[in-house]
């Protein structure tokens, strides 16, 4: 501590890298939340309603994704896939796709458990008034399921937000990348990480707080 001269001034000078970085992190989060939720929901419904083949496919997908590091998947999608498929995409797109695929696997489990927790009687009541399977899914089972899984969903989304930090390895200009830039160009190591880390903590808890408010209105009444 004795040999270190604090200089927060340099941090504020380059603060745009951090605050705009946070904005990018949130953009990544929003995009990945949207895509992974749709995917996870689709796979979960397929698993619960489908035959043995579909169930095996979904289970296989979930097992494979959940047991490998996100970093590996990020590299695989960005560096590996373009070598076998004739596609080109930006680092940001690549990361959003990867993060979505990764979290879809987690969300499948959340949604599956939620769907199974919807009481059988609800299905019977829906059938009794003449609803088709699709109508029962959309108007009865999914609305009830969402209210049941809201707490788990909130936690998963906050985790997703934290994992956007890994986008820095692809030089996506989010918060961690901004902090690394400041770190490497100003050598204000203590200051930059002492600002960047709390930014994650505060934002993460703010998101959680907002989601809990939402929960209180809608969660399983």
């Amino acid at each position, binding site marked *: 501590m004795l040999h270190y001269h604090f200089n927060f001034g340099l941090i504020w000078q380059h603060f745009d890298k951090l605050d705009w970085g946070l904005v990018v992190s949130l953009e990544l989060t929003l995009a990945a939340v949207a895509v992974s939720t749709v995917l996870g929901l689709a796979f979960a419904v397929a698993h619960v309603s489908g035959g043995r083949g579909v169930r095996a496919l979904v289970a296989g997908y979930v097992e494979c994704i959940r047991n490998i590091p996100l970093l590996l998947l990020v590299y*695989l999608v960005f560096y590996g896939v373009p070598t076998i498929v004739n596609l080109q995409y930006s680092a940001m797109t690549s990361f959003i796709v990867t993060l979505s695929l990764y979290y879809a696997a987690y969300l499948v489990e959340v949604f599956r458990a939620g769907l199974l927790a919807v009481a059988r009687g609800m299905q019977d009541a829906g059938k009794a008034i003449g609803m088709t399977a699709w109508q029962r899914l959309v108007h009865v089972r999914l609305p009830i399921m969402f209210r049941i899984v809201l707490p788990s969903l909130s936690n998963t989304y906050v985790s997703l937000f934290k994992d956007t*930090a*890994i986008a820095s390895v692809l030089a996506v200009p989010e918060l961690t990348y901004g902090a690394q830039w400041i770190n490497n160009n100003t050598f204000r190591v*203590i200051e930059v990480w002492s600002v960047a*880390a709390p930014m994650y903590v505060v934002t993460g808890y703010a998101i959680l707080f907002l989601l809990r408010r939402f929960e209180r209105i809608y969660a399983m009444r």
Partner: protein
Amino acid sequence: MNFAHVLFEAAPSLWRGLEVTVEVSAVSVSFALVAGLLFGTALAYGPILLRLPIRAVVDVVRGIPVLVLIFFVYYVGPAAGLELGSFSAAILALSLFSACQVAEITRGAIISVHHGQMEAARAVGLTFRQCLVSVIFPQALRRFLPPWINSVTDTVKGSALVSLLGIVDLMLAIQQVIGRTYRPMPFYVLGALIYLCINYALSSASRRLEAHFAYVRD
């Protein structure tokens, strides 16, 4: 050059990387287990003056992405006077992150044991330590093990991030091999398979444990 030949040449590097990954993971898991059990027990039973700071540390650490925590420890540690090489920094960060997870799991497992158990044990005349060891912990165990094994797989996955500090673990070894051989997909897939094997073995153990304990009625 067919792939079998390339793989054969790369195998030693990959093996060394795997050893590093296992080493980093194992050490972190061990530290985290000890620290996490202590913190978690303190959170469940400790006086408020002990609970509050631990709660604060746990909540803050869990709110930071693992990657940022690793960088924080790696850069801020030495500047603050700690002698930390990249290896030590990585293990410290990973252990800290995992310890906070384990603390939460421990706390959850302990409070899931009905408080009547503690009362009954005290009534028999056991000391606090005896209560914990003979009555509470054995019952908390079944609520502890499955999520703990999940946190172990999280640590193994998190260990891949130490490659960004230049530590040649499996992740970095794969990238180095790809850099030499220009065959990204086969080696990324191979790496995925290796991580998959390790973690799948762990999560199968977790599932079997959950089934084993299922006979106990809640």
